C-alpha cells in the first residue's frame, strides 16, 4: 500500500514532464503522419478501401470527441463540487447566511437528478426557512442530502479495504498484489466521486486519485498514526500466524484511510454534524469474518 501511495503521489519533476510531453507530442505527430500516408496510399491504390478508411477515421474522431466531451462534463461537475466546498468553507468562516443559502441551492442543484433523494430535497426545501445561521442551514443540508450518501461511501470503503486485505494476504506474487491494491483503490476513489455527484472519467479518475493522495500526504496520514496503532497491534497478533495476513490487515487499514481522504475530497460539504468515519470502525466492519472470528467485533 505504501508502494501504491508512492507510485501515485510522487509529483514528476519538470524535466520529466517536459520529456514525457515532448515524447507524446512526437509520437502523436509521427502516428498522424503515418496514418495520413497510409490513407493516401490506400486511396490511390484501392479507392474503395481508402474511402472506408476515411469513414472509419471520421467515426473514430467522432468517438474521441464524444469522450473528450464526457471528460469535460466530468471535470465541470468536479469543479462545481469544488466550488460548493469552497463556498461552504467561506460561509462557515464568516457565518454568512446568504452564502450558506447559495451553498444549499448548489447542493440541491447537484443532486437534482437523484430520485432517491427526492424526499430529502423536499424536506430541505420545507425546513430551510427555519435556519438563520450558516451553520444550522449547512447542517440541515448535510443531514438531509449527504447522510445517506455517507453510508454508501462507507460501504464502498469497507469493500475496498476488504479487497485489498484479501489481495495482500492471498496473492502470492510480489508486485501483483501491489497492482491489485492499486486497482482496488482507484476503483474506490472513482466510486466515491460517483456517490457524491462527480463523474470520474478516465483522465479525471487518475487526476482525482492524485488529488486524494496529495490530500493524504498533506494531512500526514500515510504513515502509521495513532488511529492505526490498534490495527497494527491487532495485525501483530495475526502476523504471528502469518506475516502476509498481518500485512493484509495493515494494508486494509491504509486503504480505509485513502477512502476517507477520498471522501473528504469528493464530499461537497465538510463534516459538520455528521460523524467523520474512523479508520478503526471501517476496518473492523470491512474485515469482519475475513480472517476468521479473532478479528474484533
Amino acid at each position, binding site marked *: 500500500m505504501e508502494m501504491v501511495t508512492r507510485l501515485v503521489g510522487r509529483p514528476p519533476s519538470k524535466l520529466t514532464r517536459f520529456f514525457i510531453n515532448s515524447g507524446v507530442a512526437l509520437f502523436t505527430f509521427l502516428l498522424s503522419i503515418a496514418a495520413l500516408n497510409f490513407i493516401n496510399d490506400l486511396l490511390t491504390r484501392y479507392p474503395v478501401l481508402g474511402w472506408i478508411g476515411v469513414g472509419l477515421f471520421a467515426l473514430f474522431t467522432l468517438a474521441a470527441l464524444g469522450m473528450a466531451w464526457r471528460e469535460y462534463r466530468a471535470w465541470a461537475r468536479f469543479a462545481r463540487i469544488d466550488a460548493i466546498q469552497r463556498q461552504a468553507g467561506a460561509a462557515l468562516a464568516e*457565518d454568512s*447566511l*446568504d452564502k450558506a443559502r447559495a451553498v444549499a441551492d448548489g447542493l440541491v442543484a447537484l443532486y437534482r437528478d437523484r430520485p432517491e433523494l427526492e424526499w430529502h430535497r423536499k424536506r430541505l426545501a*420545507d*425546513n430551510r426557512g*427555519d*435556519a*438563520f*445561521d450558516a*451553520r*444550522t442551514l449547512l*447542517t*440541515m443540508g448535510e*443531514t438531509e442530502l449527504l447522510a445517506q450518501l455517507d453510508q454508501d461511501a462507507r460501504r464502498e470503503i469497507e469493500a475496498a479495504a476488504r479487497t485489498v486485505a484479501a489481495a495482500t494476504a492471498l496473492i502470492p506474487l510480489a508486485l501483483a498484489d501491489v497492482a491489485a491494491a492499486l486497482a482496488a483503490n482507484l476503483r474506490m476513489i472513482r466510486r466515491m466521486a460517483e456517490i457524491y455527484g462527480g463523474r470520474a472519467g478516465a483522465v479525471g479518475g487518475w487526476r482525482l486519485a492524485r488529488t486524494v493522495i496529495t490530500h493524504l500526504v498533506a494531512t500526514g496520514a500515510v504513515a502509521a498514526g495513532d488511529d492505526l496503532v490498534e490495527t497494527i497491534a491487532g495485525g501483530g497478533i495475526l502476523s504471528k500466524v502469518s506475516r502476509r495476513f498481518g500485512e493484509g490487515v495493515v494494508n486494509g487499514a491504509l486503504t480505509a484511510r485513502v477512502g476517507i481522504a477520498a471522501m473528504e475530497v469528493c464530499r461537497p460539504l465538510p463534516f459538520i*454534524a455528521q460523524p467523520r468515519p474512523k479508520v478503526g470502525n471501517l476496518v473492523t466492519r470491512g474485515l469482519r469474518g475475513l480472517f476468521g472470528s479473532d478479528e474484533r467485533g
Partner: protein
Amino acid sequence: MGIGSTLMAGIGLGDPVIRLGVTGLSRAGKTVFITSLVANLMDRGRMHALRAAADGSIKAAWLQPQPDDTIPRFDFERHLAALTGPEPHWPEGTRHVSQLRLSLRLDGRGLLGGLTGPRTVHLDIVDYPGEWLLDLRLMEKDFSEWSAEVLDRMQGRPGAEEYQAALNGLDGDRFDEPVAQRLAQTYTAHLHAAREAGWSDCTPGRFLIPGEMEGSPALTFAPLPASFEGGRLHKEFRRRFDAYKSRVVKPFFRDHFARIDRQVVLVDVLGAIHQGPRAVEDMRRAMADILTAFRPGRAGWLAQLLGTRRVERILFAATKADHLHQVQHNRLTAILSAMLREARDRADFSGARTEAMSIAALRATTEDVIHQDGQELPAVRGRLLDGRQAAFYPGELPADPAAVLHPARDGADRWLDGDYAIMNFAPAPMTARPGDGPPHIRLDRAAEFLIGDRL
C-alpha cells in the same frame, strides 16, 4: 417526589434536573421565551440545531406537575393559545411567580447507552415578573445609600416633581401611617410613570407588581433625602426597607435563583435602542448590576455533592431579532455583547461558558426586500398590532457597537446619525405542520447551548 428520590437526586443518582434561570427585565420576552421553548421541545420539528432533537435521541417530552407544591404552574396552555390561536396576540405581563417542569425521555447514549436504556432529564423553568429582578440590586445596599441613589436619578423623570413636593413640608420627627401611605403611593405613581416612559431601573420592583402583599408595611416606604436622617420617619422607613430585603427579596432569590445551573439573559436591545441613548445606558447599568448577583463558574463534583450550584452556562440573548432582517443579526449580537461585556468577562473568568446570540422566541415576521430610490433595503414584513400588514426597514445598526454605547454613556438625548425605529409586530397567524413547534429564530441553537450537553 419522595424523600428517597430527593436523596438520590442529591447525591447525583436520581434523574438529572436542569434548572434554567430565565432572567430579563420586564417586557424582555421571558414568558414568550419559556412558552416557545417548551412548545418547541414538545414538538421538535423545528429544532434542527438541537442535536438531541435532530438525531432523534429525544423520544418524548412530557409536561409534568411541577415539583414545588406551593407555586402555581406556568400557564403554558393559555400562553401558547394566545400566541398561536386564530387571533394571535402577545401574552399579558406576568404578575406572579410560576413554575414548570418538562421531562424529556432520552435514548441512552455512549458506551453504556445500550445497557442503561432510556434516561429521563427534567427541565425546571421559573417565570416571574421582570420588575422583581431589579430588587436583587437592593441586597447589598442600605436604606440611606438606596435613597440617595434613587433621589439622584429621579431628576427629569416623570412624576419626580410630585414626589419632591410631597417630601417638602414633611415633618421628619413624626411618623404617621397615613402620611407614609401617601408618600409610598406618590413614589409608586412615579415608578409607574417612569416605567411607562421606558426607564428600566425602577426599584423596588414589588411596588410595581405587589401581588398579595399590597399595602403591607414592607411595601409602604419611600426614599428619603439625607436631611431626614435621625428622625422617626427615617428610622421606620429604614426598618421597613430592611424587612423588604429580608422578607421579600431574599426568599424570592433563594427559592428561584440560588440553585439554577443554566441561565439565559434576555435583553430587548432593539426596544432600548428605539427609545434612545438614555434607555440603552439605563438598561446596560441595570443588567450589569443584576448579573453581579449570580455566581457563575463550574461547580466541581464535590461541591455538587454538597449541594452547591453554580451557573455553568450563560446565554446572553438579544430578543425580538425577528424585527430585523437576518443580515443585521450579527450587528445586534455585537451590540449586546459590548453592552454586557463586564458580566460576560466575569463569567468567562470564573470558568462558566458564555455565548451571545440574537434570537426570536416566536418569529412574527418574514423577510422581505423594499425597493426604495433604486436601493434594495433588507426589510421584514409582518402584522402590526392593529392588524395591518406592513413591510418595514428599521434602519441600519452600526457595525461598531461603540457607535451605540458611547452616546448612551455620554448621556446624549438622541442618536446623532439617524433613527432606529422599531415597529411592534403582533404574532403571525400560522398553520403548523404536525410535529412542528411555533416558528422561531435560533431558539434551537439557544437550547443546544443551554441544555444540549446534558441531553
